[in-house]
Each structure stands twice: as C-alpha cells, then as structure tokens.
C-alpha cells in the first residue's frame, strides 16, 4: 500500500517476483516495512520492523540509547515464536479470461464504484487511449472515493496485456493525497466563522459600538463606517456628518493607518530613495506628504511622514498597505542598501490616532492642552509634542478633509480616556464622530486620492497630476523614477485623474461607471476611462466624482458620457478634481 510514498514525488517500482509495487528510494527519510515492503512472513516482519524502528530512532538523533537496556530479557515480545509455513509462489494473474471474448462476456468489473469494466478498458485502449493516464481519464478508472485501491493494478494489467507490454512499462497513475477522504472542517479546524480571518480592532472599538457605529472591512480591520442616528439611512448619516465637519468639528478614529518609526543617521536618505519626493530639507517639527511607487513607476502607497528629530521620522501608510510597505522598506534596506544606517519598526498598534477636523477644531483642542495652538506658530503641516488631558501625545496638524485639522496620537492604552474627554469637551461644539463613509466624501471634495480606489496599480504620479510630488533632481535614482520614464508611461493619452460634474447636480454617478466620448456608438464602445470615486456633496449641494480619463488633464471642460447599466446615458463635464476650497485656504486657517 504505497499511496503515501507517492505524495511527494516517489514513483513505485513494479516487482515481478512479488506481483506488487514497492516504494522507490525517493525519500531518504522514509522507509517501508512489513507487507508494504513485500514481506509477508510474520516473524520476518517483526524482526525487520524492529530494526527499522531502531534505525529511524538513530537517524533522528537518538543514537546514544542502548536498545537492550530497555528490554525485559525474560519476555522479549519482539522475538516471538511464530508458526510459519512456506508460502508457494503467487501467480501474476489479474484478469480471468472468459469463454467468450471480453466484449461479449458478461461484465467483468475492475472499478466497482464507477462501473469500469475490463471490456471498457480494452475499448479505451483500442480507441487510442494508450497512456495509463488517458485510460484512467477516459474510463474513470480509480476516480472513486477509494481512489482505485483495489482496481488500479488490475486496470494497468489489462492495459499492459492489450498493448503487449509489461506492467512496469505501463506505469501507474499518480496517487495524490488524501489516502482516505478528509472532512473539510477537520482541515480548516478552528479557522472558520469569526476566526476565518483575524479581526483587528482599534483601541476605540467599544466606544464606536457604544455610539452605534456600523463597520466597514478594510483589510483585516473593522473601521467605523458611519454612525447613524435613529432611522437614518447611510446617505443621511454621511450628509449630516459631512456638514458637521465643514461647519463645526468632527472626530475620526484614524488608528488603523500604518505607522512606521524610522531612525538612524541615514533615515533621510532612505526616505529620499523610497519616496518620490525630496526629504533632505524637512525640518524637525514639520510633516510632509509622500508618494511611494514600485520599480515600475506606479503609485502603490501614500501618506504623511513627520520629522521627529534630525535622525528620527514617523511614517504613516494607508490602512490596507501597512504590512506591505513595512516589508518593502525592509527588503530594500536589507538587500540593496545595507550600508544605510537606518532602523525601522512598525508602531501601528502602539499608537491610537484621533483626528479632529473642522473650523472649530482648534477651539476644542485648546480645551484639552496647554500648548500654543496659534496658527502662526503651530502651522499647517507642523507637529507638536503635547500633553492632552494629561496624556503625552503627538499632534500632527495635517488634513485629509481640507479643514483645519489635528491628528492627536496617543499611546494606545490611553486612547479611551482621550476619546471620552474629546466627546465631553466637544459637546459645546457639537462634536460629531464620523466614519470612513464621510471621510471618503470630504477627501473627494478636496480631490485627495485614496490609493487602491482612485489608483489601480497602473497609475503614475504624473497621471494623478501630482508631478509636484516627484523630485527631479535627487542625487539617487529613487524607486520608481526609471519606471515612470518608460515609453508607455510618457504617452500623452494615458488615463489621468480628473473631476466630473454631472449635468444634473443631483445625479450621483455609480463608482465604476465607464466613460465614452461619443454617445450612441455601437457596441463594442470605445471606453476612455472610468469613475473612481463618486458622492453627493452635502457641503456643495451637488454631486462630485473623480475619474480617470484618457488625456483628461488636457480636456478640462469637455463633455463625456457614461452609459449606465439601467440603459441611461449620463452626460458629465471634465473638471478639476478639487471641488471644495481649491485655494486650500481653510486648512491653513
């Protein structure tokens, strides 16, 4: 029974003497004993097996034991007297001929479960299915739940006889796991239902549940999606949350963003190489947005990195990209630039991030900390160390909403305290917690991209009209620089990120809608792009959309058409993707 010995590539060898297959010596760490090794006499089996056991023990590092010291000499059960008889030689016969030719005789079954008969196998061979694999596949021989345990050799023998060749020449089909069928759930074990994949929660997860949040799956994370009031639909809740941020102040749990602590005297140089923009001159106390590309020049992550000290930075990544970015930094440092003195460690779980955003954000923050919040000294894109309600914090004045905005980072264990205080002090400003639904709308109003939604791995910084984030004169060729200068990446008519405004201000385009230039063209239509993000902007009172359109940056103002799946074709105009506060005044206030 050699099923198992074949699973990793062993091929059994036919023994004419034994009328059976024996294992080959493919695997040096495996041996067969007893009948599986062609040994049928009981006393020999016991003797041979004991020796095999001793040898295996030695080979696995137990060579120092003395076998006999463990044996009760009086009664060695491994050397028993067994009545044996001399077996006479077996005959290699498989298929008993019938008085009639096989095709005329009553059915002679080879594989019972699938009703494969000797006549069927002979017919298959006659039709030209001569390889044993062909026979197996044509007749279904050995396909049953017993995997041909009692049928395979007979089948091979019949094929061999028909083709006038030996069983060894005919060969076997390949045994695959499993030896006998295995219950699905036994294989999955406990990794089912809620344990199918790890669920990651921010330190504030229970607070979100208390506030009635619904959650969105982002990677393994559960992120608050929106916080509906009684009977509110998602659209209503998001509209309310959006307006609250634009007119008052909102609160977002941004703890899921990846955070990587980078230190070392070459940290700047390292950032220069992995980001497309320049980092040499970023002063301590300042933050900068960066784009990360692959060697092919395509954007794969973005985020803000702050300079904590001359040789110390903290990098943020997208929620879904955190693990990948961390690995990316490691591989480049270890394999290509081991000479750079730089160290990094992921601190995503160590810090909780609460973002307060909106025109009243500073008033709220002022109640929680004593540091100088004067916008002249704590400017947009600055960060400060601070004591926030007694908790040591880092406050980043950065904005993904376009409003005055502070990201308060606190050690994860203090997150709940700070959150509770924020809600308490926030009451007078009607502080409104908001989720990813609202965050998406607010950033789209500002034309900020979400990597993975507005990009798909085929978008360069230039396609995003973000050439400003690509340094032209860095001494070292940063990752992606060569890739984004390949012939195809320099074409003018690449798909580029633009905004779309529908003719009817209330019409929200479906995300994923395809864009054409000429309506009424026959199928297949010539598609020039698609909608990547699309929402109704409560603040602006009309719908907004981001899209990629071929040569879109040069087509501002042009009409495009979107044939929807309900049959309707919607007209829209290409515009700048920055819909709200294009001067960026509000975030600077």
């Amino acid at each position, binding site marked *: 029974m050699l099923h198992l010995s074949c699973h990793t*590539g062993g091929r059994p060898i036919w023994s004419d003497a034994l009328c059976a297959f024996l294992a080959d010596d493919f695997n040096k760490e495996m041996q067969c004993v007893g009948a599986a090794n062609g040994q049928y006499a009981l006393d020999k089996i016991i003797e041979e097996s004991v020796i095999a056991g001793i040898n295996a023990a030695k080979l696995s590092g137990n060579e120092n034991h003395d076998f006999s010291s463990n044996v009760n000499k009086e009664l060695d059960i491994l050397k028993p007297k067994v009545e044996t008889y001399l077996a006479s030689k077996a005959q290699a016969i498989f298929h008993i001929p019938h008085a009639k030719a096989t095709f005329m005789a009553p059915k002679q079954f080879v594989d019972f479960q699938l009703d494969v008969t000797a006549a069927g196998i002979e017919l298959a061979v006659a039709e030209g299915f001569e390889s044993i694999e062909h026979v197996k596949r044509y007749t279904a021989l050995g396909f049953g739940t017993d995997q041909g345990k009692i049928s395979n050799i007979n089948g091979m023998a019949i094929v061999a006889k028909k083709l006038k060749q030996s069983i060894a020449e005919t060969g076997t089909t390949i045994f695959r796991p499993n030896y006998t069928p295995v219950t699905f759930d036994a294989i999955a074990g406990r990794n089912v239902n809620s344990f199918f994949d790890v669920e990651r929660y921010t330190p504030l997860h229970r607070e979100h549940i208390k506030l009635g949040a619904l959650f969105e799956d982002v990677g393994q994370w559960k992120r608050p999606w929106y916080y509906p009031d009684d009977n509110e639909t998602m659209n209503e809740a998001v509209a309310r949350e959006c307006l609250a941020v634009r007119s008052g102040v909102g609160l977002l749990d941004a703890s899921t963003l990846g955070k990587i602590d980078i230190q070392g005297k070459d940290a700047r140089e390292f950032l220069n190489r992995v980001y497309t923009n320049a980092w040499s001159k970023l002063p301590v106390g300042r933050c900068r947005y960066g784009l990360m590309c692959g*060697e*092919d020049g395509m954007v794969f992550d973005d985020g803000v990195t702050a300079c904590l000290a001359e040789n110390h930075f903290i990098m943020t990544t997208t929620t879904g990209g955190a693990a990948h970015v961390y690995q990316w930094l490691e591989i480049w440092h270890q*394999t290509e630039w*081991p000479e750079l003195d730089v160290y990094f460690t992921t601190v995503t779980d160590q810090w909780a991030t609460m973002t307060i955003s909106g025109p009243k954000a500073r008033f709220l923050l002022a109640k929680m900390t004593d540091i100088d919040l004067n916008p002249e000294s704590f400017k947009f894109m600055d960060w400060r160390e601070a004591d926030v309600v007694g908790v040591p914090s880092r406050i980043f004045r950065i904005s993904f909403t376009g409003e005055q905005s502070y990201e308060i980072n606190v050690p994860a264990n203090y997150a709940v305290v700070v959150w509770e205080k924020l809600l308490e002090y926030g009451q007078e400003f009607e502080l409104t917690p908001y989720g990813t639904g609202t965050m998406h709308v607010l950033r789209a109003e500002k034309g900020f991209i979400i990597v993975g939604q507005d990009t798909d791995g085929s978008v360069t910084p230039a396609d995003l009209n973000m050439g400003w984030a690509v340094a032209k004169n860095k001494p070292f*060729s940063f990752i992606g620089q*060569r890739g984004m200068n*390949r012939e195809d990446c320099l074409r003018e008519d690449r798909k580029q990120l633009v905004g779309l405004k529908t003719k009817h201000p209330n019409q929200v385009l479906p995300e994923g809608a395809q864009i054409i230039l000429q309506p009424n063209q026959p199928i297949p239509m010539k598609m020039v792009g698609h909608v990547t993000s699309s929402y109704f902007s409560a603040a602006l009172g009309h719908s907004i959309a981001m899209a990629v359109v071929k040569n879109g940056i040069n087509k501002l103002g042009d009409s495009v058409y979107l044939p929807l799946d309900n049959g309707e074709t919607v007209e829209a105009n290409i515009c700048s993707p920055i819909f709200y506060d294009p001067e960026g005044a509000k975030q600077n206030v």
Partner: protein
Amino acid sequence: MFLIHCPICNEPRSEDEFHCAGEGHIQRPLDPMATSDKEWGDYLFFRSNPRGTYRELWQHTIGCRKYFYIKRNTETYQIYKTYKLDDKSERVALDKEHSNKNKFGDLL
C-alpha cells in the same frame, strides 16, 4: 510543506513562518536612469525560472524578519542550503552558470 533552516535564527522552522520574495541575486542597475527601456525591462520582469537548481530570496516574516537566500531544487523541492545575504559564494557560482548559457542573450 518546507522545513527551512533560517540562517539568522539558526533553526529549522516551518514554511508558514516565511515568505518568498522571488528570484535571488538580481542586480539592480547602478544607474537606473542610464539604462535603456530594454535593460530596465529585463531587470524588472525577466526571470530565469529554471527547472532544477534555483536561488531564491526569502524572508523570515514571523521570526527575525531578515531576508536570506535559499538554494533549492524547484522540481524535487529539496533545499540544498540557506545562506545569508552577504554570502557571495553562490553569486560567483551563478555568474559562471550564466556565462555558459546566455548565447542568445544579446538578441533580446
């Protein structure tokens, strides 16, 4: 499932702890901007992909997180050895193999 000896941890560990990062010993051009599209494409995408001996870059992701090389057989799955990134001996062996092979390399 492989049993891999991590040369940094100096211990045999199960495959689940590791992640493969593709072919090893691929040289990044020293001055990428000076390469032609063809040279850059070769570096970026074209791989030796042999049936037989192969040197691969792996990371001990649930462990020391260090990258290292595995020299193994892609057909039998036998692992010949694992070695650290700064071990240059295989690099030399590889160059020899290449110089024997790439007769038509310049046609591409």
